[in-house]
């Protein structure tokens, strides 16, 4: 289907109605309106008016233009695009869970139990001392975690100035640390793609507050010096923050808390299978070592003999999010952990890593691997030595109904192709991907134009992003009507 649906504003027509709701009671007359004229709105010019069937067709046609996990392979590196179990959506839509966040605590014990249970189980999986479920996304978790570190250090007398971040880090890490009031110093990784202790020592001055480390890092490589790094940091009075975006690689294998991690965040919309919704809602719980629990943001769910409560710590960092966080996302994550159970948590990591290594093994003879260290959940190839660019391969993949890998990230790999298959892909799917990739690479040599002009079969072809940024059109306007 190659026809793009019209914008709703262009199919709107005065007088069409798409809703049905009880009328205002006849006795509620306009003279009861208690709003002075100056505050009252006169019109909603150009606001859409559609019939129900038009709304349904419009959005159904739009849906058909999207690639999604439900429709096909989505090996977008570092995003852990695993299958989102449908039963999780079913339980999250139970009407009885959809309570008002200011309902008396005695009337929402079920919801508090869900949050407390998730908190406890995340502690068991990660070995941390306590969690806050408040952050709305990974970056929000990073921000919360850095605030906790700053609060801890400030309470000891000096918040310090610098946060160290490896050069392979995701852009949210430096941004989150910056918004927590820190200066960023970037540390280079070694030729194996990881941070070594000697390099860290060179950067470890007395004003270093923390190191933010993604583990496994964005090359899909485990930071095997992590325990020694933690020791060095702690000896310097600094803390270790672990970005757990890639927790899928070793969930159930070892606990970050046992490796010396002080603060970490998880992405429920990655590791714990909650749907990403085309860019959120996510949920980025933050786990902390026992001595930092007092600094968690409000509210913290507690349990006593007479039930569950929402507690407010006065040594905490305050509030980072309205109410309790993205509760319905938490419900899905808890359902996922329950469905897996202790028997299968480790299998998630095992199959994810098997699949990534299967792809690596089957493509390493045709693609450059800049870092040859052991691959965990994702493998990062480079476009070095090819006569086409990473972007061209990515765009050509679209023609085969496969979502491309993450492109040009991490920055330390030339023309990076970051491939993360996850554990929820069959060997048949991987085989198809591998053969498509090999065919594309062959095509690159025989008919490179096929790639540089790709995609050919998608609803729209390569889009002009420069034009979009130069001539900003960020909303429909009536004057643009045909």
């Amino acid at each position, binding site marked *: 289907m190659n026809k793009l649906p019209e914008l709703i504003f262009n199919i709107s027509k005065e007088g069409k109605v798409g809703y049905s709701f009880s009328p205002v009671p006849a006795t509620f007359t306009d003279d009861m309106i208690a709003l002075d004229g100056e505050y009252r709105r006169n019109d909603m010019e150009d606001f859409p008016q559609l019939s129900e069937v038009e709304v349904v067709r419009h959005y159904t046609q739009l849906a058909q233009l999207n690639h999604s996990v439900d429709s096909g392979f989505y090996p977008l590196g570092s995003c852990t695009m695993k299958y989102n179990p449908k039963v999780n959506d079913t339980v999250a839509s139970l009407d009885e*869970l959809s309570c008002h966040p200011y309902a008396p605590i005695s009337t929402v014990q079920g919801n508090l139990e869900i949050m407390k249970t998730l908190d406890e189980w995340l502690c068991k999986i990660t070995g941390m001392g306590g969690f806050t479920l408040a952050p709305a996304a990974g*970056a929000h978790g990073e921000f919360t975690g850095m605030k906790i570190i700053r609060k801890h250090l400030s309470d000891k007398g000096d918040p310090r100035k610098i946060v160290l971040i490896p050069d392979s880090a995701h852009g949210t890490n430096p941004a989150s640390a910056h918004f927590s009031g820190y200066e960023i110093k970037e540390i280079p990784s070694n030729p194996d793609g990881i941070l070594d202790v000697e390099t860290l020592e060179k950067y470890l001055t007395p004003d270093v507050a923390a190191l933010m480390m993604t583990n496994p890092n964005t090359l899909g490589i485990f930071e095997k010096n992590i325990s020694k790094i933690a020791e060095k940091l702690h000896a310097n009075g600094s803390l270790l923050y672990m970005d757990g975006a890639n927790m899928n690689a070793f969930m159930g294998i070892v606990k970050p808390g046992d490796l010396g991690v002080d603060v970490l965040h998880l992405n429920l919309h990655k590791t714990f299978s909650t749907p990403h919704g085309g860019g959120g809602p996510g949920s980025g719980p933050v786990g902390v070592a026992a001595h930092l629990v007092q600094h968690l943001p409000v509210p913290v769910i507690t349990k006593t003999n007479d039930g569950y409560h929402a507690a407010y710590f006065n040594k905490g960092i305050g509030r980072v999010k309205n109410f309790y966080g993205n509760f319905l996302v938490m419900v899905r994550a808890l359902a996922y952990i329950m469905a897996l159970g*202790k028997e299968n948590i480790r299998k998630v990591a095992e199959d994810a890593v098997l699949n990534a290594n299967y792809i690596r093994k089957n493509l390493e003879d045709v693609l450059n691997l800049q870092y040859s260290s052991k691959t965990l959940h994702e493998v990062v190839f480079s476009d070095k030595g090819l006569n086409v660019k990473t972007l061209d391969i990515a765009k050509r993949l679209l023609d085969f109904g496969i979502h491309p890998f993450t492109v040009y990230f991490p920055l330390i790999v030339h023309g990076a192709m970051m491939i993360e298959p996850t554990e929820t892909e069959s060997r048949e799917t991987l085989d198809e991907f591998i053969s498509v990739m090999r065919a594309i690479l062959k095509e690159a040599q025989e008919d490179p134009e096929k790639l540089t002009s790709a995609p050919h079969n998608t609803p729209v072809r390569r889009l002009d992003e420069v034009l979009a940024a130069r001539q900003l059109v960020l909303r429909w306007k009536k004057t643009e009507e045909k």
Partner: protein
Amino acid sequence: MKYFPLTDSDREEIRKLLGIKETSELFSDIPGDKSYYPTDDLPSAVPENELIDGFKAIARRNTFPGYKSFLGGGAYNHFTPEVVKYLSTKGEFLTPYTPYQPEVSQGSLQAMFEYQTMMTMLTGMDVSNASLYDGGTAAAEGVLLALRKARKKNTILIAKNLHPEYIEIIETYMRDLVEYKSKYVDFDPKTGTINPDELEKIVCDDCAGFIFQSPNFLGVAENSKRISEILHAKNAFSIQTITEAMSLPFMTAPGENGVDIVVGEAQSFGLPLGYGGPYLGFMAVKEDFIRQMPGRLVGETRDIDGKRGYVLTLSTREQHIKREKATSNICSNEAWCALRAGMYLATMGKAGLRQISKTNHLNAAYFVKEVSTFKHVGVKYIRNFFNEVVLEVKNMSIDEFTGKLEKKGILAGIPLKWFFKELESAVLINFTELHKKEDIDCLIRAIGELQ
């Protein structure tokens, strides 16, 4: 386990290909004792049927659904048409990532462009972003936006009748950015609103802007026009927060009042109460703020054949390009919630939104009129509310009042003493279109019985 498509023989063959005997060999770089399963103390796997039963059992421990609730304060129970639920939960909308490959994401991108447009229409502003986490974090981002834009001015004025949780979040966001200062502006307890003359005296040369809420946390409309004029006279920005987006179709658009930055919560547009999340933070601004704005923006462009299409644009503001110099650290936001809000707005349309928002107001107005004859309680601000009112209780403590109504199956409102010392004996009561006349009569009768 149904979530793992690999069979044991697949695993065996992959291991053989990789030249390993045990899968655990792949994890040999990971330190620590791996002879034990770190997850041994979790419960065993639960089959799907038992999982559903289990959650139903937990859900039954919530007694909230058995009450008639009049709780609002930033989370509102509105009607959502069935088509919105049906369309928004399609896997094609629910299961993609951020649209990094626009050629196969035109569905999400066009829907977002339409959402942005409808939000600008409702707010009367030039540009809307594609979402922020929620109202409170949107307020904090709005404050930081004003400070960035104002450059050398470092003080933000905060209205004390702004949602108390939003204030807490702004405080958290500003605390460690040591160059910035905040100052509070009191409201007049007699009117429940900011007194513009008082504000005029407080706006200083170092003030980057003033953040206030309208309708404010006490339910009353602020004079945003006058407030904006005062701020502009001192070269400061006017930042209006809206926690009840349903007020927009009924009340003057912030853009018409000269507001520079509008931030708030759009949960009212088709998202369930959901015990507080996920909700939908929004931000709409005047054109000259675009390049300092946080969050994703969808823009229109052309493909190489000249066909219309949509992409994420102005990413040079964002963390993946600018890293620590980005306008915000936000990456994943609430895209699906915005998409759903767009569906809600398209379905309700102009007529639906006008009817629903008017019903909200008239339901509240009916309550105010009916309780005006009572001596033991009184509505504190009897004009210029939208759908929330403050009820003062004169003959008993507020805990006794809410407790007695709770026994009658009514959650009458939010005790304002949680947030304001000066409103010790008052509750904030919310009315939406989902309250039938009988429900409001029931509340009025129950309050009447407490004389």
